């Protein structure tokens, strides 16, 4: 129990960082998890191939929302090329919990939306 709903996950879920919308985002992307219907919208402002602002909106479980919150925190300052390198393990490390293949899809939804929005990669990160 404690493992899965660690305090920091619940904390990001309760008080999500970067939740909301940007004015005139350079990148705006939205997608759903087909297996459960959860949704994430991601907005970015980019300067010189570097992310300068990030925001997300969405509805879903603690895992997907905490993942979005944690990810957007990391995004600011990242280059688009760095975004391309982000993978499944990056998110697992960020969350810091053991996670099976079904819940993993929840956790990866924000990253999927990010990579689709930035690079047109329409697949679940591997």
């Amino acid at each position, binding site marked *: *129990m404690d493992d*899965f*709903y660690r305090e920091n996950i*619940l904390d990001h879920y*309760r008080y999500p960082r970067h939740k909301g919308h940007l004015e005139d985002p350079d990148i705006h992307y939205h997608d759903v998890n087909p*297996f*459960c*219907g*959860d*949704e994430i919208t991601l907005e970015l402002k980019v300067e010189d191939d570097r992310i300068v602002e990030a925001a997300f909106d969405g*509805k*879903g*479980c*603690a*895992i*997907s929302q905490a993942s979005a919150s944690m990810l957007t925190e990391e995004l600011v300052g990242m280059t688009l090329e760095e975004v391309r390198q982000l993978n499944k393990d990056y998110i697992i490390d960020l969350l810091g919990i053991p996670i099976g293949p079904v*819940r993993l899809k*929840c956790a990866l939804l924000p990253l999927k939306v990010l990579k689709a929005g930035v690079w047109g990669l329409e697949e679940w990160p591997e």
Partner: protein
Amino acid sequence: MTASTPTLQVAPMPTVAEIRKDFPILQQEVHGHPLVYLDSTASSQKPVQVIEAMDEYYRTIHANVHRGVHTLSEAATTAYEDARLKVARFINAPSTKEIIFTRNTTEGLNLVAYSWGRANLKPGDEVLITEMEHHSNIVPWQLICEITGATLRYVPITPRGELDYDALSQLLNEKTKVFAFTAMSNVLGTINPVAELVARAHAVGAIAVVDGAQSVPHLKTDVQALDADFLAFSSHKMLGPTGIGVLYGRKEILQAMPPFLGGGDMIREVKLSGSSWNDLPYKFEAGTPAIAEAVGLSVAIDYLNQVGMDWITEHERQITAYAWEQLQQIEGLRILGPDPERRGGLLSFIFGDIHPHDIASILDMQGVAVRAGHHCAQPIHDHYGISASTRASFYIYNSLDEVDRLVAALHQAKDIFSF
């Protein structure tokens, strides 16, 4: 196959404790707690008799069916066709020719939509389904309407989670060529009056397609009494193996339909210039079928018959009534769908604003397996303005104690998410 005789024969009335002994998977612990499996609506567990019958089939009689004259092939063919007879009797179909083996309910409904639909639907025609359908009874009709130019209409549901019969009277009319509906909703638990809906369809000249995925495993089914034209269901939800399902179809309609999948077994003669089709039911079974799975399904039906479908229905009614009472008392929990008297053995609910995934994960940590999500029925969830729900479902092997375990686990979830 001696494995096909359930151990229940001696007991005049089965008890859940006896039944549970036949289900090896239920003996395990999950996260240190005895497993409470409340997800049979998604897929049921299998008694050891079913598992052993398939094992035995592979160890003693496997071969390809229908076209081999050696001993194993004759034996495999007999086993496969005996399973078809068993299925026919189980739903009181007049003939084995009306029993088509598919992969699952989904394939059965697609077969009807593609084969019957492509031959019979045209622009101006209407296909009527309901807002409480599983995606399997929505998407095939969306696809075939796009192909044929027919129009798809939906019977809305009432706030109580039942069909809106006033709207139905308007929507079902002489333009309607097919009325397809579920016998039991996998989200709301609503049991629809199948015979009455079939009669209504027939009254306007439409055929009636029944999604029996949730009804056949739980309620005694008689296709002749229901007068259904088609009935689709899945083995894996009724104690049988994965990989096989059934489509019952009325003989006259099946005979008039073009084939669906082409290949071995479904043909009469193949010439370079064209082919002709085999008799029923083979016309609709292309390629090597799921033989071991048919054997498993046949033994699952033996098991259900031995326990008794009436016993099963009554057993589920009692658990559901009890669970309803208990869940009602949990503050912030709202059950979707009708009262216990008008529903089958499942309860979907929302619980404050805790996301169903989180509820299910927390329950799982306490050994309680429930399903969370849209349960392949997004339109119902849209109807209630939610994107997901949590569902606990009951079957032959569940007990009242397990309901208590569910309730206790829900209180835990509340504690974790109470902020």
